[in-house]
């Protein structure tokens, strides 16, 4: 058993929601814990770009902003090709608990496959480089 589609974590933080919200939704906040550098265009449809020392980076697309309680974005699934359309959805929920905040993060969509994913997994992509290269051969033959 164990192909997780969904990851869920909850942490209790001894800080008010406004501080936690700032850590999640501002460039300086994100750069302090998530990555080494961050750029954020805080609006639905806006993007977040995280960069880590040594080169790796991630681009997120903001999907949900309900200050100060919900912040959601989608991002690329690690390891899949850059142009693969599959993305996971990450949602942070901030609930006040006394003077602090209960922060829940849920990331879901790891097990998603497109409609034809099952068939494709077995049939293989006879497309990709093979077909691109044969297109090139045809093109060169025709000229």
């Amino acid at each position: 058993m164990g192909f997780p589609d969904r990851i869920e974590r909850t942490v209790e933080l001894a800080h008010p929601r406004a501080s936690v919200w700032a850590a999640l939704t501002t460039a300086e906040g994100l750069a302090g814990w998530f990555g080494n550098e961050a750029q954020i265009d805080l609006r639905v449809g806006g993007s977040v770009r995280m960069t880590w020392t040594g080169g790796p980076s991630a681009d997120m697309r903001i999907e949900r902003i309900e200050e100060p309680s919900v912040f959601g974005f989608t991002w690329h699934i690690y390891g899949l090709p850059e142009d693969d359309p599959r993305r996971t959805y990450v949602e942070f929920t901030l609930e006040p608990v006394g003077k602090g905040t209960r922060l829940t993060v849920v990331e879901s969509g790891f097990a998603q496959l497109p409609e034809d994913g099952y068939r494709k997994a077995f049939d293989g992509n006879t497309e990709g480089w093979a077909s691109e290269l044969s297109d090139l051969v045809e093109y060169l033959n025709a000229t």
Partner: protein
Amino acid sequence: MPPDIEAIAEQVFVALADPTRRGILAALASGGPATATDLAERLPITRQAIAKHLALLAEVGLVTAEPGERRRVRYRLNSGPMQVAQQFLASLARDWDDRLDALTRQLERPRAVRP
């Protein structure tokens, strides 16, 4: 039939657990489609052993057999099952525990450090 992605991922991991099969897949990835004979020339194993491993890889769907020149069967890398396995690996690699620890530490930091 619902897609049993975990079963596909498991087959990929079993296939990749063997160094010879990893060598075959790496050779196909770097050099493109090849026959068992081609692979035997490039790898330090017999053609018979390669044929046996190719059969297993074809069963898992990691390689596809196709007609090659002079009636020889050529094998082509098929990335579909690999992408399914990657989705599984991605869920393990997300590492929210470390990130949330870092967030907690960040919030604990003295105010003076933060602009």
